[in-house]
Structures are given as structure tokens and as C-alpha cells.
């Protein structure tokens, strides 16, 4: 039992509620939201420390023993994701301070942002399937509002598609929960794992696992990503960056949790299917990224490529593959936020997202240009930067598992992703400068700090990969051995 675990949910939630009361005091909103997100980051660091020293931390709410009560479980994988979530959220928040505009601020932008983070944090540390659904909904409802806040035509049109897709996938989620409850009689992850291992993963359970895979694929934009390019290019840059960095990753986290902890008995069916979906996602995403000439669309399709690549590590289902996935997921959260913030800054400078209408920005904005270059290289996984190690491990994992096609597609699409972002770099920063600083429609003043922070972080993650390897090893160890998780949740007692 460890009461720290609940704090990453409680702190943003309570702070957001307090902020709703003081709606006119925007300054207070800014300060409180920064404090709340930093606090949840500090708690994630403390959780990581405890994970390292004493293993998986659990909290059974109200003292009800599992599987009867609501359990919160923080293993190393969740704690790392909690920390990265807080870091990225703080950076996007700093960017929003300067760019989001007074209109949105006075219409509860900061409380909604905190509620979104509440849902994300909750999804990472919940210990049963139904609370995963609830946390998903908390996150999704906030995201519905954030995506439509501002009410421009594009936003309204795209948000309707986004809301409808997600509502339908939520219904399917409930259907899957009903079926699982009928078969196993439990919803607790650890207990599910025990029950499924006892009875063996029958054909019926495999079908349900595939239904769950479809649901999380919709949320994670794995293969079913038709809604993503439109939805992620509609809201302002700070919101799009948070969405790109975190929302798809929550779906990926859920896929990882379920297919390493509960449904790991039939890898020839489920994990092969995951591999095929990942490969298709990467190919389609890469084609989209290469084909488009609009910054927002190129970046949105890059999110899709990243999803496919992380999932490829899970498909291999080996220690190398999962290590790669953990590394790459952390890298991807940071670099997607970074590149969306950079793209948003470029669009606010030039007033357009079309690559053919811009040129030569590097003369007036050298730092912006070089940071975009770093982000582009990091996205493609060029060695000193953070994407490299994850790519190596995932490729190694897929090759060792015998999925050569998957590894090859991963490498090929990395090149296409690199081409698509370098295309932005060349068209936008090289060439003749025809936009003098007075003619620009925006300014980089104040927004450079969060971008610089994230750039520094992606360099440090690449150079200091050795330093976090102890933590990733621990995360992968629990992912590969469900017994550790079950042992921690039931505290040594046998499951009823």
C-alpha cells in the first residue's frame, strides 16, 4: 500500500476544480496549473525511486482487497510514462501561456488541460479494466472540449468526426468489458491474468482480446487512424502537441498492458495480428507523410508512423523488442510534442501551413531552424539523439522473432519519415528570405523556452540512454513476467 499513487490523479483534478471557481483570475490559473503539473512530475520521480527499491507499488482504495476493490498499480512502465507526461505537459503549458489567446483562456482552457492530464495519468496507473474505461472517458471528454474550444469552422467539423469515432469506440469498449466479465467474472488486470492462465486462452477469449485490440487501435491510431490527420490539425498548436504526444500513447499503453499481462498465451494469433496492423500503419502513415505539402498534415501522419513503430516492438514480444518499445515510446512522446510546437511556431510566423508559400526562415530565426533540424533527425533516429536506441532495439527484436518484414518496413518508413520532415526543413528554412521580421504574422518571443527545453531533453535522452537503462530494464522485466505484477497486486496471497 502506498498512498503516493493516487496523487497524480488527485492533484490535477482538485486543482482544476479550484480553478473553475476562480474563473476570472487567469494569472492564478497559470500559476496553479504549473504547480499542479510540476507536483505530479515530482511524485512520478518518487514513484520511480520506490519502484526501483521495493518493486511495484499498489494502492487498494478503501482497504478493499483485490479483486473486490479498486486497485491502483504503479509499475516502472507506468511511473516512467507519468514522469514524461508531466514534463511534456509542463512544456506545452508554457507554450500555451504565450500562444493560446485570452479568449480560450477565459473559457476554462487551463482547467480542461488539467482534467485531460488527470485522465491520462489515471489511465497509466489504474489496475482494472473498468477504471481504465472511466479514465479514458475523463481524458476523452476533456479532449472533445479542447479540440472544439474556439469554435472555428474547421474545428467544429473535425471535432464532430472525432467525438463520434470515440463515442462508438467507447461503446465497443463497454461491450468487451461485458463479455470479459461474463467469461472470467473479474475485471482486475492481475486477477484476469490469473483466471485466463488457469482456464487457458480459449478461442472466445482470443476473439475478445482482438475486440479490445480494435478498440485501443481506434484510440491509439493503430491502423484505424482515419480520424487522426483531420482532428490533430484542427486545434491550436499547444493542444495539438499534447494530443499528438499523449493521447495516442494512452491507447498504446493499454495495448501493452493487456497483451503482455493478460492475453499473452496465443502470440501466434494476437501478436502476429498486432505486427501486421503495425506494418500497415507504418506504410500508410509514411505514404501520407510523404504525399502531403502541408505542415500540419505531414506532422499528423508522422504521429501515425510512430504508433506503428512502437507497436512493432510489442509484436516481436521479446526482451529486446519491448526494451526498444519503452525507449521509443518515451522518445516519441517528447519528440512529437517538440515537432508539433515547432510546426505551430512556423505556422504562426508565416501565417500559413503550406510549404510552397514559405521560404528562408532561417535568416531571421536561426535557433528555430536548428532546433527543427535536431527534431527532424531525432524523429528519424539519427545516432546521438533519443530515437536511435529504441529503433535499434525494436529492429533487433523483430529480426530475432523472425518478423524480418516488420523490421524492414520499420527501417524503410523511418527513411520516409525523415524525408517528410526534412522536406519541411528545406522548404521552410532554406531558400530566399522574402518575409522580413516586420511582415511576420506572429512572433517567437516567449515560445522558444519550452521548445528549447524539449530539444535539450531529446539530446540528453540520446546521450544519457545508459543512465535510464536500469529503469527501462525494470519496466521490461515486469512486462515480460506477469507473475511479478500479480504477486504485487495480491501481496503474496493466492487469488480467489
Amino acid at each position, binding site marked *: 500500500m502506498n498512498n503516493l499513487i493516487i496523487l497524480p490523479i488527485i492533484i490535477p483534478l482538485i486543482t482544476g476544480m479550484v480553478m473553475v471557481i476562480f474563473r476570472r483570475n487567469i494569472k492564478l490559473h497559470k500559476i496553479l496549473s504549473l504547480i499542479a503539473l510540476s507536483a505530479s512530475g515530482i511524485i512520478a520521480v518518487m514513484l520511480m525511486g520506490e519502484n526501483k527499491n521495493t518493486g511495484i507499488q499498489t494502492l487498494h482504495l478503501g482497504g478493499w482487497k483485490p479483486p473486490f476493490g479498486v486497485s491502483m498499480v504503479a509499475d516502472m512502465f507506468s511511473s516512467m510514462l507519468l514522469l514524461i507526461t508531466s514534463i511534456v505537459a509542463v512544456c506545452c503549458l508554457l507554450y500555451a501561456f504565450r500562444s493560446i489567446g485570452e479568449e480560450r483562456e477565459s473559457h476554462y482552457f487551463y482547467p480542461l488541460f488539467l482534467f485531460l492530464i488527470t485522465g491520462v495519468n489515471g489511465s497509466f496507473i489504474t489496475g482494472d479494466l473498468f477504471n481504465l474505461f472511466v479514465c479514458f472517458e475523463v481524458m*476523452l471528454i476533456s479532449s*472533445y472540449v479542447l479540440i*472544439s474550444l474556439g*469554435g472555428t469552422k*474547421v474545428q467544429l467539423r473535425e471535432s464532430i468526426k472525432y467525438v*463520434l469515432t470515440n463515442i*462508438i469506440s467507447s461503446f465497443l469498449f463497454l*461491450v468487451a*468489458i461485458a463479455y470479459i*466479465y461474463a467469461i472470467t467474472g473479474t475485471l482486475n488486470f492481475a486477477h484476469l491474468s490469473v483466471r485466463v492462465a488457469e482456464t487457458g486462452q480459449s478461442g472466445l477469449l482470443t476473439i475478445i482480446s482482438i475486440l479490445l485490440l480494435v478498440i485501443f487501435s481506434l484510440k491509439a491510431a493503430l491502423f484505424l487512424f482515419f480520424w487522426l490527420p483531420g482532428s490533430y490539425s484542427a486545434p491550436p498548436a499547444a493542444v495539438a502537441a499534447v494530443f499528438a504526444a499523449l493521447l495516442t500513447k494512452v491507447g498504446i499503453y493499454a495495448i501493452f498492458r493487456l497483451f503482455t499481462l493478460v492475453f499473452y498465451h496465443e502470440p501466434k494469433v494476437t501478436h502476429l495480428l498486432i505486427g501486421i496492423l503495425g506494418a500497415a500503419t507504418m506504410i500508410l502513415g509514411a505514404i501520407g507523410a510523404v504525399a502531403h505539402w502541408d505542415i500540419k498534415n505531414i506532422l499528423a501522419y508522422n504521429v501515425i508512423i510512430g504508433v506503428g513503430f512502437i507497436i512493432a516492438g510489442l509484436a516481436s514480444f521479446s526482451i529486446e523488442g519491448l526494451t526498444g518499445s519503452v525507449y521509443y515510446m518515451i522518445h516519441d512522446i517528447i519528440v512529437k510534442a517538440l515537432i508539433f510546437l515547432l510546426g505551430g511556431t512556423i505556422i504562426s510566423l508565416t501565417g500559413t501551413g503550406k510549404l510552397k508559400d514559405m521560404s528562408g526562415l532561417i535568416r531571421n530565426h536561426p535557433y528555430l531552424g536548428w532546433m527543427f533540424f535536431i527534431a527532424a533527425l531525432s524523429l528519424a533516429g539519427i545516432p546521438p539523439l533519443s530515437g536511435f536506441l529504441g529503433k535499434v532495439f525494436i529492429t533487433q527484436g523483430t529480426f530475432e522473432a523472425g518478423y524480418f518484414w516488420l523490421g524492414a518496413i520499420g527501417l524503410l518508413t523511418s527513411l520516409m519519415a525523415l524525408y517528410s520532415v526534412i522536406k519541411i526543413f528545406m522548404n521552410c528554412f532554406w531558400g530566399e528570405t522574402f518575409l522580413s521580421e516586420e511582415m511576420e504574422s506572429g512572433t517567437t518571443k516567449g515560445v522558444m523556452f519550452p521548445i528549447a527545453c524539449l530539444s535539450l531533453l531529446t539530446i540528453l535522452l540520446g546521450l544519457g540512454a545508459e543512465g535510464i537503462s536500469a529503469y527501462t530494464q525494470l519496466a521490461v522485466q515486469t512486462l515480460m513476467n506477469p507473475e511479478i505484477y500479480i504477486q504485487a497486486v495480491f501481496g503474496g496471497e493466492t487469488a480467489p
Partner: protein
Amino acid sequence: METLMSLLVGLFFAIGTYLILTKSLLRIILGTSIISHGVHLLILTMGGLKTGGPPLLGLQDLPFTDALPQALILTAIVINFATTALFLVLSYRAYKVLGTDDTDQMRGNHDE
């Protein structure tokens, strides 16, 4: 009883799917609402319909009905209220701004 409920759930899903596939936004929202009822009934059916007495501590010699599905449905209903309300408001606003509730006419280019 379970068979009857399953048929009812199937009917709800059929009606809801039909409504979601239409063009008018209001019908789509009604469709999601009807599907949600189907989902809630499905959870109730899957948890086992009234198989014993109420789960109260005083009545110890009876077999108990599982109370968990009701708790799940209660949460799901509340969430469904919130999303439906939000979706209605959103579509009203979209109707005001875009001037149509026909999803076919809502398509537009990204350039505006």
C-alpha cells in the same frame, strides 16, 4: 430471459447503427444514445440476470445476485449522459456556424 434480453440488445444495436449511418446529425446522436442503452442492457445480461437474493448482509443463507454489473452500468450511464449532452451542444453549435446539419454538406477544404 437471457435469450430475450440478447434479442433486445441486438435490436437496439441494429436501430442505433442504422441511425448512425444516416446523414442528419441529430439522428446520429439519437443513434449513439440508443446503442448506449443496448450496451448497458448487455452488461446487465452478461453479469447474469436475477439468479438469487439481494446482496445484503442480513440474508446469509440465500445465493446472492452479483451487484457489480449495476455499479458498472451506473458509471457508464453517467458518462454517457455527459458525452451525449456535450455532443448535442457541439452539433447545435456546428449547425449554427456551418449552417447545416447534413454531414454530407459539412465537408469542406482545409484552406478556409
